[in-house]
């Protein structure tokens, strides 16, 4: 399916789960289980994706061209035929960045209103 060509900011706001998947893939190419683990780890277990939710998101991200299946499989021993890896496309990067910026703007407002006690660093 050809990725639709619309500006990256038009993909937002993403659902939190979708954003987390994009963030997870922003680090490295990952397969499904690794994405779940990564999200779980990054959020200290606050966001736990089920397989149904994850693959619903992956289907959408694939259709929108935000991620692609990585063609070459890594030669790991535990990798079987069923396992596919996903990689963020440059469009995916832009969309994730646009979403992060949007959130940053929101946070700036929250800070200005003294809703956030301290500035956290990622």
């Amino acid at each position: 399916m050809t990725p639709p060509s619309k500006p990256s900011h038009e993909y937002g706001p993403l659902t939190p789960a979708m954003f987390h998947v994009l963030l997870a893939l922003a680090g490295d190419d990952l397969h499904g289980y690794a994405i779940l683990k990564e999200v779980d780890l990054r959020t200290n277990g606050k966001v736990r994706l089920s397989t149904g939710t994850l693959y619903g998101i992956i289907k959408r991200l694939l259709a929108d061209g935000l991620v692609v299946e990585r063609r070459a499989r890594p030669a790991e021993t535990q990798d079987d035929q069923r396992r596919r890896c996903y990689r963020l496309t440059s469009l995916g990067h832009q969309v994730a960045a646009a979403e992060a910026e949007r959130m940053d703007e929101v946070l700036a407002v929250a800070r200005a209103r003294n809703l956030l006690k301290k500035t956290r660093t990622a």
Partner: protein
Amino acid sequence: MKPESTRASRLYRALLRLLPFDFRSDFGPEMETVFHEQNAEAKRSGPTGVLKLWWETISGIFRTAPREHLAMFAQDARFALRMMRKNPGFTMAAILTLALGIGANSAIFSVVNAVLLKPLPYRHGDRLIVIQQQAPRAGLLDQPFSVQEIEDYRHQNHSLDSLVEYHNMNFILLGRSEPERVETGVVSWNFFDVFGIQPLVGRTFRAGDEQPGAPAVLLLSYEYWIRSFGGDPTVVGKTFTMNDKIHTVVGVLPPMPQYPDENDVYMPTTACPFRSSPAMIEDRTSRMMRAFGRLKPEVGIRQAQADLSAVAANLQKAYPNIYTSNLDYSVKTIALRDELTQNARPTMLVLLAAAGFVLLIACANVANLNLARMVRRERELAVRAAMGAGRVRMFRQLFTESFLLALIGGGLGLLLSWGGLNLLVSFAARFTPRAREIHMDGAVLLFTLAVAVITSLLSGTAPAMAARESVANSLKEGGGHATLGCGSHRVRNLLIVVQVAVSFLLLIGAGLMLRSFIKLQHVDAGFQSENVLTMRIGLNFTKYNTRDRQRAFFEQLLEKIQAQQEVKNAAVTMVFPLNGSQPMTGDFMMEEQPMVPGHSLPLADLRVVSPDYFEALHIPILHGRAFTRGDRSGAQDVAIVNRSAVQHLWGGEDPVGKRISLDGGHAWVQIVGVVGDVKQYGLNRGAADEIYFALAQTPLASGDVVIKTVVEPMSVARKIIELLYEVDPNQPAARVQSLEQVRSDSVAASRLTANLIGLFALLALAIAATGIGGVMALVVSQRKHEIGVRMAIGAKPAEILRMVLGQGMALALVGAGVGLLGALVLMHLLQKFLFEVEPNDPLTFAGVALVLGTAAVVACYIPARRASRVDPMVALRAE
């Protein structure tokens, strides 16, 4: 451990089946792997971890599945819409066919829903009953109640919460700009409480309103309030004069089906001068009220029947001279709901069946259109299959297309039925007071949606099956020149047979109804309705309170009317034929037959007419004479009987010169003539035994004027009303109409039913005929090559024409044969709608066969002609 071997994996795989096929085939195996890993990890953290994982997994799938199904539907729908735009001809034909089929069903369902399915709009409507007194041996099945009988049933029963009475009167209401004749319901004070009706404005009646001597009060019906007072709420508290008494309006009723009659106003029983007269209260046989009851909460209708029957038995014991043994007196309870809908039920069900048949034909036709289209889409489907679209996927796509067609058709059908709603309401009003409850509501929308879904299944299955076969063939033959297999030919032929058979059935039904209606219209009613004007004049009985005054009024009026040059004859009658009035039956004594104690007297319908009545209506004098001006008060009282009465009551002997008595032998009335029978109660009903009395000797307080004119009768109506005002400016006339109109109205229900079924049958015929034509056209285009070869080796165009025609007609013939068998089995269900026509009427069957045959020939001729003009060279070169 392989994931597929564990129980958890099997369970997970089962869960995955909730997701759409495409999703599953894309991600299913991968999801299984991931779940396997998750599960292994969860196990390490103990049973809570496993439970938590399952909970998250199951809820995740349940959240994802509907979204994915919807997304898939949206995708399929977009594709389907694209396909529909590509084939505008097919799309239009299918949508229009389905719109007609579904619209017919929605329309009829809106009536069935409101009239037969919905609960009554009265609180505790399921506990309301109608109580009827019956004396079957005297032919009385719904005998009104007397005041004493009402009291007896009210106080002696143990099964009813309340028992209320009702009767209808015509009073003159003064106090508005013109005197107005108002239909008045006279009811027990708690009548509206029993029916659970809350007033819209003001209050309903209270017990105090029904006390003798209480100030007279009125309730207005909603319709009358809107019509005469423009919905003005300040009307409550206003006073009007009725029956020389001041009446105060205390409230307005809500819009609701008025039962038993449509009334303008309601009053409590004590306000009605007739009902509250001592003569009425004291005479157990002065009957004019209807009785209704509300069952106690735990009591069923059978218990109530047994309970009231016991009361009836008590009455028979207590008054053996009134409820004589030869009458077979009894009481009957009927659920109000049944009473309100029993006239409508058979007609509505027949119409629903007819509409269902139309939809069946529409489905068969669209299925055929779809099949024909499959031929052209074979390559597309093959490509899709080759690209990996599974069987389920293709089915789903085709069903989505069928569903969209049905949905759009259903929407259009809903619009069609909404457009025809007013017509339907006025149609249903001929059968039931519940007609006003007919609306396009949520239930109708839901029904339409359900019909659309069923329709898409019915019309989508055959094409989807054919597609499977065709794809298999196409792939086998390498995507070359494949045609739909012979299996789908059989399906197409079968669908045509179904269409023809069902059309045949509907046409037979319509034909029988139509024949019945025509017979009904041409029935000899015993009178002539042409050029007769009728109007109802109910005298203000406080002003015309003596027989002399009543007599003088009508004599003066008739004299004035008679003097008009447009008028041939004018007469007054208690009631003219077919006006829907209840029989007024009375018993009488024959001079030559002594009374037998414990046996009832002979019964006949009693009428009062002025001398020119028989002439005005062309009722023949068979023997003796008509009434004359000489039959006055003081002269010998005279009567005229009809032919039926002579047959039944005098055993065919000439009764002229014999005497009868209505008052137990005090006064004797001499029979002076015999007249022909008149169909008084309906063209489809037999004549009653009738005895006519002379108006001058038996004056009326209320009568119908019938005027035979030499011009169009309605054109003199205004003039006659002015003559009436000359006699008495405060005297209104009601129901001014021509007798022709009355006669036509009396068969309106049959006419409308026949028209509706006829409309459905024509729809069916049109759909089936285009269906045959379409299929034959397809056959011709598919067999072009073969036809070319035939012609190249010497077949003549006429032979080709015959061949194609023959094929089409063979299908039509098989269909007609099946329809014929169906009709022979099913048509007896229509028996009760038929009048002087047998359900297997050969003329109707022959006529329908002719119509259907002609339609089939015309439908097949067009493609057959095209086939006969195939140029063999072109056809062969095209290969």
